[in-house]
């Protein structure tokens, strides 16, 4: 597998995992998602408009998320995203996969000092 495609899959895979995780508890709008990623990663990871929204739309296309316009009195309407059952299933899988991956990486990197 090429270096590039690993990077791309890694970023894509992890981004999906991040978004799905953040929506696990409750529906959120795009700006909220991006803020949460930034603050929880203490600024190490950030998603900007140009990459966040296309990714949201793609997840929506794949049936993992559902976006819906919500109007609250006195505010502009916002589009909220929530997990679909399919999204919830994938989230579990991705999370397990990620843990396994981290474990594997830890084994490899830890080996040097074993």
């Amino acid at each position, binding site marked *: 597998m090429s270096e590039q495609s690993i990077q791309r899959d890694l970023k894509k895979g992890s981004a999906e995992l991040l978004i799905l995780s953040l929506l696990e508890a409750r529906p959120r709008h795009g700006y909220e998602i991006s803020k949460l990623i930034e603050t929880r990663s203490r600024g190490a990871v950030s998603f900007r408009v140009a990459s966040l929204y296309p990714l949201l739309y793609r997840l929506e296309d794949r049936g993992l998320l559902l976006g819906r316009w919500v109007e609250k009195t006195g505010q502009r309407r916002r589009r909220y995203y929530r997990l679909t059952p399919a999204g919830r299933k994938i989230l579990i899988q991705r999370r397990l996969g990620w843990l396994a991956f981290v474990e594997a990486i830890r084994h490899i990197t830890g*080996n040097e000092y074993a």
Partner: protein
Amino acid sequence: MPDWNQPIRQRLEGLNLDGSREAEIVEELSQHLEDRYRDMLSSGLSEDRAVTAALGELETDDLLARELRKTRQPADGRRAPLGATGPSSIFAGFRHDLKVALRIVIQKPAFAAMVAGILALGIASNAAIFSVFNGLFLRPLPFVEPSRLLDLDETAPKWDLTYVGISNFDAYHWMWGNTTFDGMAFFGHGGANLSDGSIASQRIEAPPVTYTLLDVLGLKPVFGRNILPKEDKPGGDNVILLGYDLWQRLYHGDRNILGHVLKLDGKPYTVIGILPREAALPPNADAWIPLAADPNSSGSYYLSGVGRLKHGVTIDQARADLTRVHKSFIKTQPVNEDTAPILQPLRDRYLGDFKTVTHILLGAVAVLLLIACVNIAGLMLVRGQSRARELGIRMALGASRARIVRHLFTESCVLAMAGGILGVALGEVCLRALVSLMPDDIPRWVEFGMDFRFVFFCVAVIGASAILFSLAPAVDALRVNAHGSLQETARVTFSRARRGMLGVLVVGEIALALMLLVGSGLLVQAFRKILNVDPGFRPHNVLTWSLDPPASKYKDGPSRYAFYHELIERLKSVPGVERVSAADLVPLGGHNGYFFVAEGARQLGPQEKNPVVLGITAMAGYFETMGLTFVGGRGFDERDEQPNQPHVAIVNESFVKWFWPGQNGVGKRISYAFGKPGKEDWLQVVGVVRDTAHYGLDGEHRPSVFATYPYAPQRAMTIAIRSGIDPHALVAPAREVIRQMDPDLPMFKIHTMTERLDHSLWTRRAYSWLFGAFAAVALLLAAAGIYGVISFSVSRRTREIGIRMALGARPAQVMRGVLADGMLLVGAGAALGLAAAYFAASLLRTMLFGVSPRDLFTYAAVAAMVALVGVAANYVPARRASRVDPNQALRFE
């Protein structure tokens, strides 16, 4: 408040989104930018910097559009709701897959080249051989309803002859008396010297045919007309139908040729029409003239026939019908007791000789195709396994399973396509080479072209095996859940079952290759054996050509003898010529059969038949010129050709062995079996020569009799010159000598004896070497298979090997272990292959020229060769294994 909509819209331009969708996106994104802007302001940034920071979210000008393009459908009139996928996303996905597949294929050029190369070899060899087979045996003949056409001839088992030819009497009485044919036509075989004013005199094949021939074949003249029934009668007008090629060659397709008068053997013939190209019956006919035969003459058997069956009539019914007609004339034609009609499909008669050969070759390429499939399957499996880990990671990172399957599928398709294209190109080259090597006696109506249905079949078969086996890891990936995949790929990827499957593939491959090698070994042995056969004459530096002085000019035997005698005398003075003589049939020059009686011959057994004897007319000095060896007695000299001399003959060893076994034939008397007993015209045997390979080095030896020219004069003779120089250099001076004697007399069939021998071995040489080439390719493929599998297994076992070495195993031990593993597969394959070859080789029996299909030497040599190649293919991975650094290996993974 800044206007966010404008910069967002700008970036969406070119996406061609439909209005409502664009509005939604703009609304959602500008909301985001607005939130960002407010946050920046509240964190104490100036308004300007807050705007810049918010706009920074859009990053480069084209990123948003690029990212969106992956998801959003351009508006094409239909309103798709947000989030729906449209049809073009499938195409986009395919394009993406294709791009990735191409990149991956290019990243591993050696692997790609190997797969494409194997595919190409398999496809090319199969396509080329099949196209030849197709042309010869499958493609319908270019006649109307060719399945109703039968070849007609007479057979005489009592005379030990399968094909006798048909007499005039039988031909016409079959034609008139049968009830099962819509039509019958007959034709002779014969050449004529064509002369036509400015055109240099030349030899053409102008067989006489019945006027029915075109109709029976269902053909029409290109233009002009057919022969008329009244022209096809004794004394009818001399007319000629020119063959298409001859018309093009000599008259450049001139349509004013109708009515033109040309000369055949000095007699004028009027051109009445042009034959279509397909009308090449007999094969290689250049023109047709009317047969104009007397239906009641029954002396000679010289015709061939073709009949068109009535609808619904079977060949057996037709045979019974013709036999009934044939036997009904036994009273007036007692010879019909011995002869009988023999019928077969047209193609079998003209191409039957090639049947065994092409079937065998087809079998060989089919095996090659199988090996190619197996090899590709093995390679794909190995490669798939080595990628299982990569696939596991990708799945863990979010690639969907469907996507991975699609991806692998595209990758194998790209490889299959590349191999297919390469294979077709290579196959076309091979086919052309094969066709250019074809002997001249293949009928002109046979066409060879690449059969693309078959090419497609080959690509499909090999491509399917590539795709099928490339998907194996994806199937695994589908089974293993995402959690397990990483660990599983790391440890258990090369499952016992998969390893077993690879082992079986390699064993099968070796067995198949060994089978081909044994076959080709036997054929090459046979070929070498034939090359070592003593031809019974000395072929080097002998030039031969034929002359056919027309009866119109050279009316009788003595005038022709005078011509030939003078020609020989004149040729003797040409510089470089050592000896000159002539015979009507030189070795490999054809057959004239007669029956002979011999004085004091042994009694024939009850089941024995008087053999057909090859009768040759030879002139003085012929035996010395051709280099025949005398066992006893002498050759002909000029005294034997003088009038009033006792009639003499020379026989060969086979003749002596048959008639006077254990005796010396010199001094005994023989006679042609024309007359009744007691009225023989005895010839005294003055010499006995060793048998010659008259019917080819691998042909039979028949009893032969040589008679002098005055006793058995012939019209056409073949002149033979033995020279001290390159015999080709004598063609021009010889032509000049002939031109001075008779400018209208063309030389034809100009060949050296070495060329004749070579030509007679063409088919055998071609199939022996082709078979050999296929076997070599098969071995190469099998070696690549072994190498691939063992290399892979070593690379999978690096860790284990490392541990063993860390525990004290020596490199030599490791190497031995790996070699043993590999050689176990080779051994199993070889054993299986030897067993299979033992049974399959008997299929070749008819082609082996006495070499036993169980020839121990061949089997042993092939087994040794396979073992050697096996060791070589195993050596590299084994060496690699022995050089594993335990430290590195343990860190690996």
